[in-house]
């Protein structure tokens, strides 16, 4: 799987979303993206890419694109 596919899969698993809904996913728009959903998503992303996110990054991870930005800051290439 490419990094992008791995990243998308975290959304599918962590927020129980359909793969087609992943790119538009945000904390505002997705019901399951509450604090429990966020913790799930973060845990999956940290595991999948073998990184640890700091609190600021955790809190800035509010939608699909901001998450990609966070990962890029950890030298993950897409």
């Amino acid at each position, binding site marked *: 799987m490419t990094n992008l596919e791995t990243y998308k899969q975290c959304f599918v698993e962590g927020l*129980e979303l359909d793969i087609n809904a992943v790119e538009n996913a945000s*904390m505002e728009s997705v019901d*399951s993206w*509450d*604090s*429990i*959903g*966020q*913790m*799930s998503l*973060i845990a999956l992303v940290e595991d999948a890419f073998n990184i640890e996110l*700091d*609190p600021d990054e*955790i*809190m*800035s991870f*509010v939608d699909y694109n901001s998450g990609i930005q966070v990962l890029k800051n950890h030298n993950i290439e897409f």
Partner: protein
Amino acid sequence: MIFNIDQKPFTSVAVIDDSQGQLTYGELAEQIKEIKAILPERELVFCLCENKVGSLLGFLSLYDNKDVCLLLSSHIDRELLKALHTTYHPSYYWMPSDKVTEFEYNEVFNTCGFSLCRTGEVAPEMNLSLSMLMTTSGTTGSPKLVRHKYGNIESNAKNVASVFEWTPNDRGIIDLPMQYTMGLNVITSHLYAGASVMLMEANLLSPKYWKFIKENKGTDFTGVPYSYEILSKLRFQRMDLPYLHTLAEGGGKLSDVHFESFAKYADEKGKRFFATFGTTETSARLAYLPYKDATSHIGSIGRAIPEGKLSLVDENGNEITNIDTDGELRYEGPNVTMGYGTSVEDLKKGDDFNGVYFTGDIAKMDKDGYFYIVGRKKRFLKLFGLRVSLDQCEKIIKEEFAIECACTGDDNQMKIYITKSSLAVDVNKFISEKTGLLSKSFQVNVLPEIPRFESGKINYKALA
């Protein structure tokens, strides 16, 4: 007026929310009087709650007017809401104004973003002692309600305020839902003390949350065990929050690791960490661990709150006085509710509990008279702080899929046992939807058959 709201300093802030709402005690008192004038006493009102000023205002007004409110989330599953409506036929709703068009009721009043709507139905006959209703098992389609009596939330507000020693200078952070017994108790104990209530819709993981509590200088926080997981993840202990002097925990058993970590943190920083324990049936809190004893009594729920009495009983109902001996936790106090209701006729019932409640938890007492929960006798789990009835889950799965089913597990995950492997995924999806919890909260296992006793009852021990 409830909690003597009309006697508090007029300009003191009573409640603010993170949706730009605010009411001083004076404004709150005035609005309560205005709402009370609109409807008669003893109506049955379904309150679709949010953590907003208007939502709380409605509840306080209706409660003070001697109407009976059933507190529900404004996001409640609409099928469940329909079932509750059919069962109890409320005469009014108090709901966010932006939800009025979803229903066909008659809006008769609105203020602070919330509306009072008449359903056109006549309120059911209700016992005069019945003060309000709350649901027990979160969202699992069970209309089992807890019937409160006048004096329950009042005494709990007073006694909990005394435990925490709230003053008018305190500003309580409330992101726990107001329709949840502990959320309501944090609110009422602050109002009792003339302190301020900070209602929040934002969750702990959003930047909005921290911005709001910093700008408004929240002084105390109350969370369920999962909240503390999140705080750990956010490295809360490294944050600079000089005005936040009290941390409280309830709604489930905090792991010893987190308990010790936060107890020590509070000690070092000169803050206070309180472990508490409560149930919906006791209008929230029934026990607390004095903060000074937190680090030396890791995992304890402490002792009874003022005016309450905690004891342990054995299988025969005899009181256990030996230390370190397991027994069922029994609580007596003015905050014990009247009992349950599952039908509209039950609203006429009086006091079944009579001030005594067996919590269904197994506990033991140490030499200092402090209690520790060691297990649970009743068939429910607390997943992410939400109470989920195992029997109710079995029932709805059996009804939906016409299959055999057994539910057990622990507060980390529910284990569901079925005999048809082809339905495993569907069952997981179904129960996840009905409870509103992620599917990883449930593990569906397939067995050739469910182990039972000769009587036909499920042998849960064999499943462990």
